[in-house]
């Protein structure tokens, strides 16, 4: 019998899904531990693909409402994605919600009711005004190079809490605009890559991890087959002498076998009550698709998955209303408002919101000026936009930063994408300057050489 190595024991105990690769085990010893006490243990990222308009949702601008169709009184950015004309007032009414009095438009009445749990950042800004570049920037911190995704960095830094599940799951992600690059591990170990379930082009009814089910063999027959494979594998290992990769390979088959049963159990929504399904909007065809994604996200979070991303995108670029703003944003918001509020309420009721960080936003916002002829469209705008956070150690019921009086540029307390990344890592107990990986001769970080933790929003 073989004398199992320390690495192998470590693989059994400490690391998650597939993290049995040799290099990730070494990493497991070095990393996989917060740098300081974390406020959040996991992240749910609600990604609104296409770029929801800040001035029509969470960034109320009275001057914009007043100066409808007048020219913008200052310069537009040096580079713009498309041409825009004069200012376009928001067609939606804003109301004050909760004790915080946060102003939220009528696009989000349900989320508005959760305003006292939200930390709304109105001063986000990025660098890229095209979907592809902006998506990559938001997900990986770089729009020029192939870099690991934020979820991969986090999983690399902290590991998974459930050794039978992936540490980073992305539900119905979009295959366009960076596609897999948005959840890839790049130069980090393959084990921390996002595990995609379905894609934005398929309904969320049956999102699946590929190859998770065996359609041919019953469990007993498969076990017998696996026993044969493993006996062959052990023979081979014996003939080569100790080899960590071959040892890891034997473990990886056992882990795969366990995952086959664990994954479907987490994904089975049958045990959820009717009230719960209603809470997430599963009873309504408008909200059912995104509601199911949100409910799955909660179940994965509960099961110990470190980073869950939920993407709201259809076979079109969902929130990308260059035209048809009224109809488009109305429909988009209607699909997500109830599910998101349901998720926030559910997490709170379970006590999960305390250590789960929920992050909402798109790859950029939209211009306060109008695109197209019919006064019903807005262009991409990375210069100033809104994202909100909830739970996981952020101050609830606050608003941070501001755009100029028309909502075009982030103006005060500007928060760059790098700053957002630094802050998310900080909430997870990770110092963004110390979470590094050596590649091609130097150390790399999620935040490259930039990023400041936004201390004012920490609870």
């Amino acid at each position, binding site marked *: 019998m073989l004398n199992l190595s320390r690495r192998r024991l470590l693989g059994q105990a400490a690391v998650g899904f*597939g993290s*049995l690769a*040799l290099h*990730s085990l070494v990493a497991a010893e070095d990393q996989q531990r917060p740098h300081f006490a974390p406020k959040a243990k996991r992240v749910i990222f609600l990604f609104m693909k296409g770029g929801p308009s800040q001035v029509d949702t969470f960034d109320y601008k009275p001057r914009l409402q007043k100066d409808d169709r007048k020219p913008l009184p200052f310069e537009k950015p040096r580079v713009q994605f498309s041409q825009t004309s004069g200012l376009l007032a928001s067609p939606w009414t804003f109301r004050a919600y909760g004790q915080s009095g946060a102003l939220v438009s009528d696009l989000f009445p349900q989320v508005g009711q959760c305003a006292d749990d939200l930390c709304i950042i109105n001063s986000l800004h990025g*660098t890229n005004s*095209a*979907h*592809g*570049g902006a998506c990559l920037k938001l997900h990986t911190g770089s729009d*020029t190079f*192939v870099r690991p995704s934020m979820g991969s960095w986090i999983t690399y830094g902290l590991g998974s809490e459930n050794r039978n599940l992936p540490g980073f799951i992305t539900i119905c992600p979009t*295959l*366009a*605009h*960076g*596609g*897999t*690059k948005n959840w890839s591990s790049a130069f980090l*170990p*393959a084990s921390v890559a996002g*595990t995609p379930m379905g*894609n*934005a*082009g398929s309904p969320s009814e049956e999102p699946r991890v*590929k*190859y998770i*089910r*065996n359609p041919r*063999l019953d469990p007993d*027959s*498969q076990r*017998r*087959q*696996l026993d*044969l*494979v493993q006996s*062959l594998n052990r*023979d*081979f290992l014996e003939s*080569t002498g*100790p*080899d960590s*990769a*071959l040892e*890891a*390979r034997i473990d*990886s*088959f056992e*882990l*795969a*076998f366990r*995952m086959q049963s664990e994954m479907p159990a987490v994904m089975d929504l049958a045990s959820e009550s009717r009230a719960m399904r209603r809470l997430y909007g599963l009873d309504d065809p408008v909200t059912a698709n995104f509601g199911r994604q949100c409910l799955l996200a909660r179940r994965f979070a509960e099961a110990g998955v470190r980073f869950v991303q939920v993407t709201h995108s259809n*076979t*079109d670029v969902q929130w*990308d209303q260059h035209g048809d703003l009224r109809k488009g944003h109305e429909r988009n918001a209607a699909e997500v408002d109830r599910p998101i509020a349901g998720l926030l309420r559910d997490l709170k009721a379970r006590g999960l919101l305390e250590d789960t960080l929920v992050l909402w936003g798109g790859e950029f916002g939209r211009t306060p000026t109008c695109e197209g002829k019919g006064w019903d469209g807005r262009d991409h705008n990375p210069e100033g936009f809104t994202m909100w956070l909830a739970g996981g150690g952020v101050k609830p019921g606050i608003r941070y930063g501001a755009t100029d009086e028309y909502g075009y540029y982030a103006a*005060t307390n*500007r928060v760059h994408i790098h700053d957002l990344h630094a802050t998310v890592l900080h909430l997870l107990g990770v110092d963004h300057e110390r979470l590094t990986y050596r590649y*091609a*001769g*130097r150390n790399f970080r999620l935040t490259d050489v930039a990023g400041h933790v936004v201390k004012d929003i920490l609870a």
Partner: protein
Amino acid sequence: MYTLWMQVVVLALAPAQEGPPAEEQQLRFFESRIRPILAEHCAGCHGPRKQKSGLRMDSLAGMLQGGKAGPALVPGKPERSLLVTAVRYRDPDLRMPPDGKLADRDIEDLARWVGMGAPHPDRAAVGVVRRGAVDGEAGRNHWAFRAPVLPALPPDAAGKPVDAFIDALLRSKGIRPLARADRATLLRRATFDLIGLPPTPEEIDAFLADPSPDAFARVVDRLLASPHYGERWGRHWLDIARYADSNGMDENIAHGNAWKYRDYVVRSLNADKPYDRFLLEQLAGDLLDAEGDVAVRQENLIATGYLALGPKVLAEVDEAKMEMDIVDEQIDSVGRGLLGLTLGCARCHDHKFDPIGQDDYYGLAGIFKSTRTMENFKKIARWYENSLASPDELARKAAHDRLVAAGKKEIAGLEKSAAADTKKELQALREQVKKLEEDSPVLPSAMGVAEGVVADAAIHVRGSHLTLGDTVPRRFPRVLAPDAPPLGGSGSGRLPFARWLTSGSHPLTARVMVNRVWRWHFGRGLVATVDNFGFQGQPPTHPELLDWLAIQFVRDGWSLKALHRRIMMSEAYQRAGGTDARAMEADPENRLYWRRDVRRLEAEAIRDAMLAVGGTLDRTLGGSLLTVKNREFVFNHTSQDKSTYDLRRRSIYLPVIRNHLYDVFQLFDSTDATVLSGDRATSTVSPQALFLMNSDWVASVATATAGRIVQADASKAGRVARLFLEAYGRTPSEAESRRLLRFLEDGGTWQSLCQAILSSSEFIYVR
């Protein structure tokens, strides 16, 4: 061990202009307009208390010296001054003050002040602090930047020079290497290594039955002569060429003609095209004289696809940035791929570790900027393609176009005469012309480059085109070519650059390539960091062997096949796997090659081997399997998956779709086809096991294999033996045979048994 490259040179500033009134006025302007701005808006973070980014804005010296980003001020040159760039807010990465743009008047005054030459009361007292050049002298002493010297062979080297170097080191450590591997193991190893497929039972029988001493040498020759050799080693080269059939990045558009470059690589390797010629064609094929031979000319043009294949942000709204990003991608690929140098690091600043200055980078950038890679930069930008049309094809196309034009003219004529009976005729004619237009012959073309607008490039301060510094003449990096004059001339300089790389005396070109070949044979390079020979790379484990191989490679006329023979005929290559307590103790990682390491097959070889064992591999050579047309989206916003991989062709021919690689390949660590990689990872993760256990694809291969095995032999034991021979390249032991038969007796099917064999380590790994 690296030196500080920056030298700080203090120069006296040129004396201020004569004429007190103007000077006084200017100083007054500084005191009344500029000093207050600097004090109020800058000195808080860049002053006596804080010096963010190492910068002080409260003194002239501080501004001239600058911070981490470089000098804040170039007197007289507002467009080159970071101070002006920053306050103008044009560069999204450099905006000062950070929490709000200054008033327009303040910005104008600052720019005016810099334009005046930055008059300042301290001016007489302060010298200009300028960043000096990279220290080339210290750099040239780095081993990789010195030309290789033919080492003296160790005394007992006769006939086995590679082993002489390897054994000398082993002896010095007191390690005794393992013996030669058995013949079956050796055959499986060599066959996978050279053609990426398992040996057939017939080939195994023939080799085991051949008693002659040169039997293995003849196996190597047979494999090198196989057309599958080019497919196997072409795939390795494609890793270096970051080959892909789609752009990836933001706009994932099909590289509909990239396959021509891929087939060119396969053909070139099969023909054992000298490596210097191979590089020359890829870097400057469009500039080579084909001596009137159309086929050669086409081959040369296709070869330049190498420079054009990189991923591009085609919807980048800033066209100047797009152009420089493309140039940067080319410099990075050529740098790491051919030179083993991370040249890309010097885009924004002097290289932090290697003696490559920012001026060296822009000296090269001028060459690539003078090269035409793009047709235009309008979003969505179009890459350039060279026409491959023959005179015949051009004539046919012209004739076709004339026909269409004539038809249109006739239609126009008929339209004028409104007679009722022409209506039907008109309709028929319109349809005819429409059909003709649809059938218009598409002229063949290939992604590649041509000469562009020739111009030197300016240094981009902080890598940004928004703050341009001095213009640098097109030239080679000084540390490698200290005496080479600037290129000048009317061409881009690509051809001289390619000739310099392949001159035979270049310190890096041959070393980097022989090291790559060694890596692909052994799983680790003599220099472990195969893409980085700079100061941050690993030093070679066997420097003399590396130099000897590099020099012989050039002497052999840059023949890759000769290099394979040298390596594979060595004992080091032919050793058995296994273990040895003493050797394990002294060299646990086998850096000295006392044994053969077990290696997992690459993604493509796993798939090809399965298809081969299943008997369904389609061995057709070359051609395109893309299902979308050139420049069509493979993925647009819809996320509709148009790719299909249900094919039986060899893996190298499967479309490589960036951002959406075939998931099986991704699972088994193929490159991401976006950046080059000469050292693929080998991960072992559970999704690989899930794929082997549960996928329809593996199940179908197992079914095919079972069908073959059952047909091949009437007896169960015979079938088991055949399966072992096909999959493992050896016969089973009695115990192994018994275990498999018992699995069947317990109700397991042949299909399930075959799947187990195909999933097992011995099939996926090579000893």
